[in-house]
């Protein structure tokens, strides 16, 4: 299991487009993936779940990866957060 803390750095926050992209990225991997914010634990392969997360610029989210390809998944998804969702 891998746990990583990430920060939302783009101005618009975790809006619909990045939410959809995160789910698309996560779906490529076999490992389980969840996002934890303010005590809310969300399945990262569920678009409707990720969309319930209100995460404006500056907020922190914990990402948890668990499964055989967890390292690859963690590096790609954490990187996407760190790039500010390419915005």
């Amino acid at each position, binding site marked *: 299991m891998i746990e990583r803390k990430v920060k939302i750095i783009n101005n618009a926050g975790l809006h619909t487009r990045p939410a959809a992209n995160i789910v*698309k990225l996560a779906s490529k991997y076999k490992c389980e993936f969840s996002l934890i914010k303010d005590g809310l634990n969300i399945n990262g392969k*569920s678009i409707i779940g990720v969309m319930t997360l209100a995460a404006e610029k500056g907020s922190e989210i914990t990402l948890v990866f668990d499964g055989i390809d967890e390292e690859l998944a963690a590096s790609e998804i954490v990187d996407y957060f760190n790039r500010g969702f390419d915005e």
Partner: protein
Amino acid sequence: MKSESENILKGIGAAPGIAISQAFIYKKEKEEITNESITDIDEALENLDVALEKSKKELRKIFSLAVDKLGEKRAAIFDAQIMILDDPILVSTLQNRIKNEMRIPEYIVNDEISKYTDLMNLSHEPYMKERSHDIEDIKNRIVRNLKKKKWKSKITSDVVVVTSTVSPSDTVLFSRVNVKGYVTDFGGLTSHAAIVARSLNIPAVVGLHDASNRIKEGDLLIIDGFKGEVFVNPDEKQLHYYQKKISQLQKQDTELNKLRELPAKTLDGKEIQLFANLELIDEIELITRNGAKGIGLVRTEQLFEEYEAFPDEEEQYKVYKTIAERIYPETVIIRTFDIGGDKVLPVDLKEPNPFLGWRGIRLLLDSPQLFKSQIRAILRASSHKNLKLMLPMITSISEIKKSKEIINECKEELKKEDFAFDKHMGVGIMVEVPSAAVLIRDFAEEVDFVSIGTNDLIQYILAVDRGNEIVSSLYQEFHPAVVRTLHHIISESKNAGTMVSMCGEMAADPFAVPLLVGLGLDSLSVSASAIPLIKKIIRNLTYKELQSLATECLAFKTEKEINNRMRRFFNEKEKDHIKNLY
């Protein structure tokens, strides 16, 4: 008499005819979702699956068209909505809950998705509220599709549908089952329900305000589409009267059918071509039976209403070819999609003023792929040389020129691909916007024919929304501005040597027909069911008297004068001639 009137509801007779049948109450979104239990789990799972698939197709249809107009942000929301329908976590939760709780899928869908929207609504971020609306939107779409399937299977015997309003997709749904009549709370003569009911020859009474609350499921109803009256649980006397009336009408139908082979010619020998409008493929039979000269308007957007995605070239080609072959050797005028912004865009993107927005030719020119697939399909179906193409909502000459360029491109492509088609297929326009009426001479010189669409033309000239009950009485086909505009369009088109006809509802109004013929129209396109009556009216008049009637009406300054004159003319000339028919 007093005791009788208590069970009579009065509205507007929107489609003629009489029906006696049980009421079927069709309540759409408003109906509460109950937590009924189920016994057949497999069936429920299957229904969920079908509803999810159907919702996906609907969204893709909207998305395919609106993508350029949506902007990136909105497009992302669409993308996400489609993803939600495939969300593995959501879908498996829904399936498991149906299995474990054994409740109807619409209850489970509503309950499960509401958990997410409730969470979103807890947030203080304003955009989360917006997002919650989007999720709500998708929830309602799934629930609606789950219910639709149920509606269809619920109607097993003859019924009169009682509802608040009827949408185009509802009418398609109902055209497939045993619907004997429509009764609606809202809507006027030109509402969609009225047009479809007339074309299918099903009586309809609209604008009854609270009929859907006052009538109970299973009540016996008599609907009188001539007078606009509905009798709820009629007594013996009322039933007897209307049963007699129905058999009288059947006799008259036989009378009118005798006119089938006769031309719509005035007593002094002027022949009017009577064409039919077509909305549903099922109408072809009635069209040929009623002796139409051909089809003056195919409403293609309606023809494919029940398709979940936009039909591709091949699908369209098959349908156009069927129509062309079945009507051959007569002519068929196919109007390209007249889709309005209000029909394609999702709820939160609706234009504030769809009638002044992105519709008709504007949408087609902005969606070249869609436009070309339709032009190519029509061209390919034109090999018997009996098809013409008509462009909707033309407001400027550049729209005609651009469209013609695209048509030529399509011809070049088809030639290279070795398809047979009519190289000289006629191209015409709808005249339904004041700018087209003003510039008619120039426009007419650019095209092979023009067809006056009165429904929109009148509403644009008079600035009256025909669907808005508060002002619908101001929607007047005999307004002097309308009558003089018609005169201008007809005479200027003729001066340009271009064929002119009319395909709006006005052409099917027995009171208006004498004026339209007098103004010089040589052809009219109406609901197939109206053809025999109009033929009978025309055959009883002389063109000479109609010309002077038109001259008289052109001089009037008020709607009232024209209206009174036309009614007086009708009563003097036609009332006895067609008595009991109207």
